[in-house]
């Protein structure tokens, strides 16, 4: 596709509410835009400008919230533009200290009842869908919506399936759901439009633990198929059998 090889879009600076600004590196998810957002956020944190209260990333952008009594929009915009001009953010490397997580998951069964529906939408048999989803090594593109909850991508093209128009009333904690070439591993029970294709026993957020959040942006994840009985055994482990190895 010719558009895919075209030069990356120019970063865009917009306001968020009254006291926020957003630097977007694309209007849709792409690998370079995601890398740019992560790297730009790291640079913002390092710069720690007076008046900046908080920085974060979403899939393709970096967000800055600031104190209106110490900074104004024009001054912040000028600083953001100067920082943007310093380098080609789309060519940035991934963050350091990344890990590869292998997380046991049950695909299908009554623990993950929407596997058949998701497989059909992707044009696969259920067996093909499980093989495809468990072979994919996906990356934490951002953490958001709920505490410690990763958006994982990017899956093969066949998984470019839409979210459901009807919401599922409740998806349980640890659910693995699929749509738009991404997986979301849910950290809390919530309603969702994503399709519930797998179930894990991992706890992504433990507020009382020394390290409350399991995953970091940039980490890679691969889901290993297990049986419902095996998953039941893993529920005693707060990590749900998840194992990490350092990536250089």
């Amino acid at each position, binding site marked *: 596709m010719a558009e895919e090889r075209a030069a990356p879009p120019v970063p865009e600076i*917009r*306001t*968020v*509410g*009254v*006291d*926020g600004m*957003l630097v977007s590196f*694309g*209007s*849709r*998810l792409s690998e370079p835009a995601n890398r740019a957002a992560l790297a730009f*956020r790291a640079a913002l944190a390092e710069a720690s400008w007076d008046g900046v*209260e*908080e*920085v*974060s*990333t*979403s*899939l*393709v*952008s970096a*967000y800055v*919230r600031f104190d*209106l*009594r110490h900074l*104004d*929009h024009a001054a912040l915009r000028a600083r953001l533009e100067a920082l943007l001009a310093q380098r080609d953010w789309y060519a940035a490397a991934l963050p350091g200290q990344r890990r590869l997580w292998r997380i046991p998951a049950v695909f299908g069964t009554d623990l993950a009842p929407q596997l058949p529906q998701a497989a059909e939408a992707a044009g696969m048999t259920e067996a093909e869908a499980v093989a495809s989803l468990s072979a994919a090594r996906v990356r934490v593109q*951002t*953490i*958001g*919506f*709920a*505490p*410690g*909850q990763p*958006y994982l991508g990017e899956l093969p093209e066949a998984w470019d399936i*839409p*979210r459901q*128009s009807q919401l599922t009333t409740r998806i349980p904690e640890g659910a693995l759901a699929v749509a738009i070439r991404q997986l979301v591993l849910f*950290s*809390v029970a919530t309603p969702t439009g994503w399709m519930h294709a797998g179930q894990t026993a991992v706890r992504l*957020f433990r*507020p*009382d633990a020394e390290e*409350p*959040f399991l995953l970091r*942006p940039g980490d890679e994840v691969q889901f290993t198929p297990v049986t419902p009985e095996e998953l039941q055994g893993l529920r005693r482990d707060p990590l749900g059998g998840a194992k990490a190895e350092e990536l250089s």
Partner: protein
Amino acid sequence: MTGSLTILRAGPGMTVQDLGRPGWLEYGVSRGGAADRLALAEGAALLGQVADLAAVEMAGLGGEFQADSDLRIALTGAPMRASIDGTAVAWNASHLLPAGARLTIGAAQSGSYGYLHVGGGFQTPEHLGARSAHLAAGIGAALAEGDVLVTGPDSGRGTGLGLTPENRFEGGTVRVVASLQTALFPQAELERFEGTVFRRGARGNRMGVPLESDGEGFRPDGARTVVSEVIVPGDIQVTGDGTPYVLLSECQTTGGYPRIGTVVPCDLPLLAQAAAGAELHFRFIPLEEAVGLERAEAERCEGLRSRCYPLIRDPRSMTNLLSYQLISGVIAGEEDVL
């Protein structure tokens, strides 16, 4: 010296709240904190202390509390009927709650969230740097009968002050600014949004409140493919059926539904406090005007203390009238009135 307060009875949705925990957006945790942040500033002014101390937030219904030591308290937010050992006490005011005395707080008479503050604040455990419960995130828990809340050292003095609150308990006009996805809505839809009389839906909570109206839902142009983006409190998300939903302090941190605009932070208490069924109107204002409003509001909050006045008590409700020094019915501000 620290003290404590025992909860004898708790309405549902009663939690400890402070200004919330900024800095964890990166990990999917929204700031949270009091649904009505202005109420925290008012409580701090009434007790003469800093505004970042934790208070008890009561969602529509109060409870019954017993002081285990002499405590200075203040009551703010949605007005609720309150009494100490059976004697009615004023809302939007500070009082002495003597050791052993019982404080009874009833249902909200208007608005949604009432607040009980104590001198020194509540010193419940911190999670990620704040004491706020964030139930949506699984941090902390609702308060229940039998809970004992330890209070911090109270370096302040005096009670018996009142403060006239901004009336934010009956709905009204809310100012909004254009934000990330406002331009996805056709101009005619934005005008219709401004012209619509909304009612605050009944399903609202600390995460957000739905806006009901009699007309059609609001439709963006082809926005099904919006990439998930950062969400801030005050964002007005338009869900699939076209119903606007205003996000409050416990909102999610990212989302893919388009947002028609963002409520100016100083108007957010009005939205959080609007009771179910209250009428709400929305008006877009330029960003520059909103910045001016925010700066003025920050100054006003800092000056709240100078707006406190000594409470005037009704002599008919005072059983120990002769023990007071009365000058034209006014109690000297330094004295405790109970």
